[in-house]
Protein backbone atom coordinates (compact mmCIF):
# COMPACT_ATOMS: atom_id res chain seq x y z
CA UNK A 1 0.00 0.00 0.00
CA UNK A 2 1.47 3.40 -0.97
CA UNK A 3 2.45 5.71 1.84
CA UNK A 4 0.67 9.03 2.42
CA UNK A 5 2.93 12.07 2.66
CA UNK A 6 1.58 15.41 3.84
CA UNK A 7 3.65 18.12 2.07
CA UNK A 8 3.35 21.53 3.71
CA UNK A 9 4.92 24.41 1.79
CA UNK A 10 3.49 27.73 0.65
CA UNK A 11 5.70 27.60 -2.46
CA UNK A 12 4.22 25.53 -5.26
CA UNK A 13 7.77 25.23 -6.69
CA UNK A 14 8.91 23.35 -3.60
CA UNK A 15 5.91 21.01 -3.65
CA UNK A 16 6.53 20.29 -7.33
CA UNK A 17 10.20 19.63 -6.66
CA UNK A 18 9.37 17.05 -3.99
CA UNK A 19 7.00 15.32 -6.39
CA UNK A 20 9.62 15.35 -9.16
CA UNK A 21 12.38 14.02 -6.90
CA UNK A 22 10.20 11.09 -5.85
CA UNK A 23 9.40 10.16 -9.45
CA UNK A 24 11.40 7.08 -10.38
CA UNK A 25 12.27 6.34 -6.76
CA UNK A 26 10.96 3.60 -4.51
CA UNK A 27 8.44 6.18 -3.27
CA UNK A 28 7.06 7.02 -6.71
CA UNK A 29 3.64 5.64 -5.75
CA UNK A 30 3.41 7.72 -2.58
CA UNK A 31 0.22 9.72 -2.23
CA UNK A 32 1.16 13.38 -1.78
CA UNK A 33 -1.33 15.52 0.09
CA UNK A 34 -0.41 19.15 -0.49
CA UNK A 35 -0.98 21.91 2.04
CA UNK A 36 -0.35 25.55 1.09
CA UNK A 37 0.23 26.72 4.67
CA UNK A 38 0.86 25.29 8.11
CA UNK A 39 -2.75 26.05 9.04
CA UNK A 40 -3.90 24.11 5.98
CA UNK A 41 -1.51 21.33 6.99
CA UNK A 42 -3.13 21.10 10.42
CA UNK A 43 -6.53 20.71 8.74
CA UNK A 44 -5.21 17.85 6.58
CA UNK A 45 -3.14 16.14 9.27
CA UNK A 46 -4.75 12.97 10.58
CA UNK A 47 -3.83 9.46 11.72
CA UNK A 48 -3.74 8.12 8.16
CA UNK A 49 -0.62 10.18 7.32
CA UNK A 50 2.66 8.22 7.25
CA UNK A 51 5.15 11.09 6.87
CA UNK A 52 5.01 14.88 7.09
CA UNK A 53 7.30 17.13 5.03
CA UNK A 54 7.24 20.78 5.99
CA UNK A 55 8.93 24.04 5.09
CA UNK A 56 10.09 26.30 7.92
CA UNK A 57 9.35 29.84 6.70
CA UNK A 58 5.71 30.24 5.77
CA UNK A 59 3.24 33.09 6.21
CA UNK A 60 1.20 32.63 9.39
CA UNK A 61 2.23 29.64 11.47
CA UNK A 62 5.83 28.62 10.70
CA UNK A 63 7.10 25.08 10.26
CA UNK A 64 8.56 24.93 13.74
CA UNK A 65 5.26 25.77 15.42
CA UNK A 66 3.51 23.44 13.00
CA UNK A 67 5.75 20.55 14.13
CA UNK A 68 5.06 21.35 17.79
CA UNK A 69 1.34 21.52 17.10
CA UNK A 70 1.16 18.12 15.44
CA UNK A 71 3.21 16.57 18.26
CA UNK A 72 0.67 18.01 20.72
CA UNK A 73 -2.16 16.55 18.69
CA UNK A 74 -0.54 13.12 18.58
CA UNK A 75 -0.31 13.17 22.37
CA UNK A 76 -4.09 13.69 22.52
CA UNK A 77 -4.38 10.58 20.31
CA UNK A 78 -2.45 8.71 22.98
CA UNK A 79 0.51 7.91 20.75
CA UNK A 80 3.81 6.92 22.35
CA UNK A 81 7.16 8.37 21.25
CA UNK A 82 7.82 5.39 18.99
CA UNK A 83 4.45 5.80 17.27
CA UNK A 84 4.84 9.47 16.33
CA UNK A 85 4.44 10.32 12.64
CA UNK A 86 7.88 11.27 11.28
CA UNK A 87 8.43 14.89 10.31
CA UNK A 88 11.00 15.89 7.68
CA UNK A 89 11.77 19.61 7.53
CA UNK A 90 12.78 20.91 4.09
CA UNK A 91 13.96 24.49 4.27
CA UNK A 92 16.55 27.08 3.26
CA UNK A 93 17.32 27.51 6.98
CA UNK A 94 20.40 25.38 7.48
CA UNK A 95 22.47 26.76 10.34
CA UNK A 96 23.31 24.51 13.30
CA UNK A 97 21.20 26.70 15.57
CA UNK A 98 18.11 26.23 13.38
CA UNK A 99 18.64 22.47 13.01
CA UNK A 100 18.80 22.10 16.79
CA UNK A 101 15.62 24.15 17.25
CA UNK A 102 13.83 21.91 14.77
CA UNK A 103 14.98 18.70 16.48
CA UNK A 104 13.74 20.10 19.80
CA UNK A 105 10.35 20.78 18.19
CA UNK A 106 10.02 17.13 17.16
CA UNK A 107 11.49 17.13 13.67
CA UNK A 108 13.10 13.78 12.76
CA UNK A 109 15.02 14.61 9.59
CA UNK A 110 16.29 17.87 8.21
CA UNK A 111 16.95 18.73 4.56
CA UNK A 112 18.39 22.05 3.41
CA UNK A 113 17.23 23.49 0.07
CA UNK A 114 18.43 23.02 -2.60
CA UNK A 115 18.17 19.28 -2.20
CA UNK A 116 18.67 16.25 -4.39
CA UNK A 117 16.40 13.29 -5.04
CA UNK A 118 18.90 11.09 -3.19
CA UNK A 119 18.72 13.27 -0.07
CA UNK A 120 14.94 13.12 -0.09
CA UNK A 121 14.83 9.35 -0.54
CA UNK A 122 17.51 8.85 2.14
CA UNK A 123 15.48 10.93 4.59
CA UNK A 124 12.37 8.89 3.84
CA UNK A 125 14.31 5.65 4.26
CA UNK A 126 15.68 6.87 7.59
CA UNK A 127 12.31 7.75 9.08
CA UNK A 128 10.38 4.83 7.65
CA UNK A 129 12.91 2.06 8.10
CA UNK A 130 14.57 3.46 11.22
Amino acid sequence: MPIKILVVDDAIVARKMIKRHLTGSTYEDAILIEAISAENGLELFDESINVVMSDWNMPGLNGLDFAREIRNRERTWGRSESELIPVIMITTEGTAQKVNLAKDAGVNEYIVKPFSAAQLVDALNNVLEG
Partner: protein
Amino acid sequence: MITHEQFIDTIVATCAEIFEMMLPMTMSNKMSQRPLPFDYKLKDIQDDMIASIGLTGEYNGTISLYLPLPLALDMAGWLMEASYAELSSEVYEAVGEIINMIAGGLKNRLSSNEHDIFDVSIPIMISGKDKQVYHGKNKEYILVPIDTDKGLFFISLVLDKQ
Protein backbone atom coordinates in the same frame (compact mmCIF):
# COMPACT_ATOMS: atom_id res chain seq x y z
CA MET B 1 34.99 40.25 8.86
CA ILE B 2 34.01 38.51 5.66
CA THR B 3 35.89 39.68 2.56
CA HIS B 4 34.36 40.43 -0.83
CA GLU B 5 36.20 37.39 -2.19
CA GLN B 6 34.58 35.15 0.43
CA PHE B 7 31.13 36.53 -0.42
CA ILE B 8 31.78 35.95 -4.14
CA ASP B 9 33.06 32.40 -3.60
CA THR B 10 30.07 31.57 -1.42
CA ILE B 11 27.54 32.94 -3.90
CA VAL B 12 29.18 31.01 -6.76
CA ALA B 13 29.25 27.79 -4.68
CA THR B 14 25.60 28.23 -3.74
CA CYS B 15 24.58 28.72 -7.37
CA ALA B 16 26.59 25.67 -8.41
CA GLU B 17 24.74 23.60 -5.82
CA ILE B 18 21.35 24.86 -7.04
CA PHE B 19 22.28 23.96 -10.62
CA GLU B 20 23.44 20.52 -9.54
CA MET B 21 20.31 19.69 -7.57
CA MET B 22 17.43 21.68 -8.96
CA LEU B 23 18.09 23.41 -12.28
CA PRO B 24 19.52 21.82 -15.44
CA MET B 25 22.24 24.45 -15.92
CA THR B 26 26.01 24.36 -15.74
CA MET B 27 28.53 27.10 -15.10
CA SER B 28 31.11 27.99 -17.71
CA ASN B 29 34.80 27.30 -17.06
CA LYS B 30 35.31 31.03 -16.54
CA MET B 31 33.46 30.74 -13.22
CA SER B 32 36.37 28.84 -11.69
CA GLN B 33 38.81 31.71 -12.30
CA ARG B 34 39.60 34.24 -9.55
CA PRO B 35 39.11 37.08 -9.85
CA LEU B 36 36.15 36.35 -12.09
CA PRO B 37 37.09 37.41 -15.65
CA PHE B 38 34.20 39.84 -16.12
CA ASP B 39 33.98 43.58 -15.88
CA TYR B 40 30.39 44.67 -15.40
CA LYS B 41 28.77 47.44 -13.42
CA LEU B 42 25.27 47.29 -12.01
CA LYS B 43 24.12 49.96 -14.46
CA ASP B 44 25.29 47.86 -17.44
CA ILE B 45 23.36 44.69 -16.81
CA GLN B 46 20.20 43.40 -18.43
CA ASP B 47 17.63 43.17 -15.71
CA ASP B 48 14.17 42.44 -17.08
CA MET B 49 13.40 41.00 -13.69
CA ILE B 50 14.91 41.58 -10.26
CA ALA B 51 14.23 39.34 -7.27
CA SER B 52 15.46 40.83 -4.02
CA ILE B 53 15.69 39.79 -0.38
CA GLY B 54 16.51 41.98 2.63
CA LEU B 55 19.23 40.90 5.05
CA THR B 56 19.33 42.05 8.69
CA GLY B 57 21.75 41.13 11.45
CA GLU B 58 25.53 41.22 11.63
CA TYR B 59 25.38 42.32 7.98
CA ASN B 60 22.54 44.49 6.70
CA GLY B 61 21.51 45.03 3.10
CA THR B 62 20.00 43.18 0.18
CA ILE B 63 20.83 40.30 -2.10
CA SER B 64 19.31 40.49 -5.56
CA LEU B 65 19.03 38.28 -8.60
CA TYR B 66 19.04 40.10 -11.97
CA LEU B 67 17.64 38.04 -14.81
CA PRO B 68 17.08 38.67 -18.50
CA LEU B 69 13.52 37.71 -19.46
CA PRO B 70 14.33 34.55 -21.50
CA LEU B 71 16.37 33.11 -18.65
CA ALA B 72 13.72 33.95 -16.04
CA LEU B 73 11.08 32.20 -18.16
CA ASP B 74 13.37 29.24 -18.79
CA MET B 75 14.27 28.75 -15.12
CA ALA B 76 10.65 29.13 -13.99
CA GLY B 77 9.43 26.79 -16.70
CA TRP B 78 11.76 24.06 -15.60
CA LEU B 79 10.95 24.43 -11.90
CA MET B 80 7.19 24.64 -12.48
CA GLU B 81 7.10 22.02 -15.26
CA ALA B 82 5.40 24.52 -17.54
CA SER B 83 6.13 26.80 -20.47
CA TYR B 84 5.94 30.57 -20.07
CA ALA B 85 5.95 33.25 -22.76
CA GLU B 86 5.75 36.20 -20.37
CA LEU B 87 6.10 37.10 -16.71
CA SER B 88 3.33 35.79 -14.49
CA SER B 89 2.68 35.09 -10.84
CA GLU B 90 4.08 31.57 -11.28
CA VAL B 91 7.30 32.93 -12.82
CA TYR B 92 7.63 35.38 -9.93
CA GLU B 93 7.11 32.57 -7.43
CA ALA B 94 9.67 30.30 -9.07
CA VAL B 95 12.30 33.05 -9.26
CA GLY B 96 11.46 33.97 -5.67
CA GLU B 97 12.31 30.44 -4.60
CA ILE B 98 15.66 30.68 -6.41
CA ILE B 99 16.69 33.89 -4.64
CA ASN B 100 15.46 32.31 -1.39
CA MET B 101 17.85 29.40 -1.91
CA ILE B 102 20.71 31.74 -2.83
CA ALA B 103 20.18 33.90 0.28
CA GLY B 104 19.77 30.78 2.41
CA GLY B 105 22.94 29.23 1.02
CA LEU B 106 24.91 32.38 1.75
CA LYS B 107 23.55 32.50 5.30
CA ASN B 108 24.11 28.81 6.00
CA ARG B 109 27.67 28.78 4.69
CA LEU B 110 28.79 31.96 6.45
CA SER B 111 27.03 31.59 9.82
CA SER B 112 28.80 30.06 12.80
CA ASN B 113 27.43 27.35 15.07
CA GLU B 114 26.69 30.00 17.69
CA HIS B 115 24.78 32.55 15.69
CA ASP B 116 23.26 33.29 12.31
CA ILE B 117 25.04 35.93 10.27
CA PHE B 118 21.72 37.50 9.23
CA ASP B 119 18.01 36.87 8.93
CA VAL B 120 16.33 37.06 5.55
CA SER B 121 13.07 38.73 4.53
CA ILE B 122 10.53 37.38 2.09
CA PRO B 123 11.51 38.03 -1.56
CA ILE B 124 10.16 40.91 -3.60
CA MET B 125 10.01 40.94 -7.39
CA ILE B 126 10.55 43.95 -9.61
CA SER B 127 9.97 44.02 -13.36
CA GLY B 128 9.28 46.57 -16.09
CA LYS B 129 11.23 49.01 -18.23
CA ASP B 130 13.34 51.91 -16.97
CA LYS B 131 13.31 50.81 -13.34
CA GLN B 132 15.87 52.25 -10.97
CA VAL B 133 16.81 50.71 -7.67
CA TYR B 134 18.27 53.10 -5.11
CA HIS B 135 20.15 51.42 -2.28
CA GLY B 136 21.07 54.51 -0.23
CA LYS B 137 24.40 55.92 0.85
CA ASN B 138 27.43 54.29 2.46
CA LYS B 139 26.97 50.91 0.83
CA GLU B 140 29.38 48.26 -0.37
CA TYR B 141 28.49 46.75 -3.73
CA ILE B 142 29.45 43.23 -4.74
CA LEU B 143 28.32 42.19 -8.21
CA VAL B 144 28.71 38.54 -9.15
CA PRO B 145 28.21 37.52 -12.80
CA ILE B 146 27.04 33.92 -13.16
CA ASP B 147 27.99 32.63 -16.61
CA THR B 148 26.12 29.47 -17.61
CA ASP B 149 25.35 27.33 -20.63
CA LYS B 150 21.90 29.00 -20.67
CA GLY B 151 23.22 32.55 -20.52
CA LEU B 152 24.59 35.15 -18.18
CA PHE B 153 22.85 36.56 -15.12
CA PHE B 154 23.90 38.54 -12.08
CA ILE B 155 23.64 38.50 -8.33
CA SER B 156 24.30 41.64 -6.35
CA LEU B 157 25.02 41.95 -2.67
CA VAL B 158 24.58 45.48 -1.36
CA LEU B 159 25.61 45.86 2.27
CA ASP B 160 25.85 48.69 4.77
CA LYS B 161 29.50 49.65 5.16
CA GLN B 162 30.93 48.05 8.28
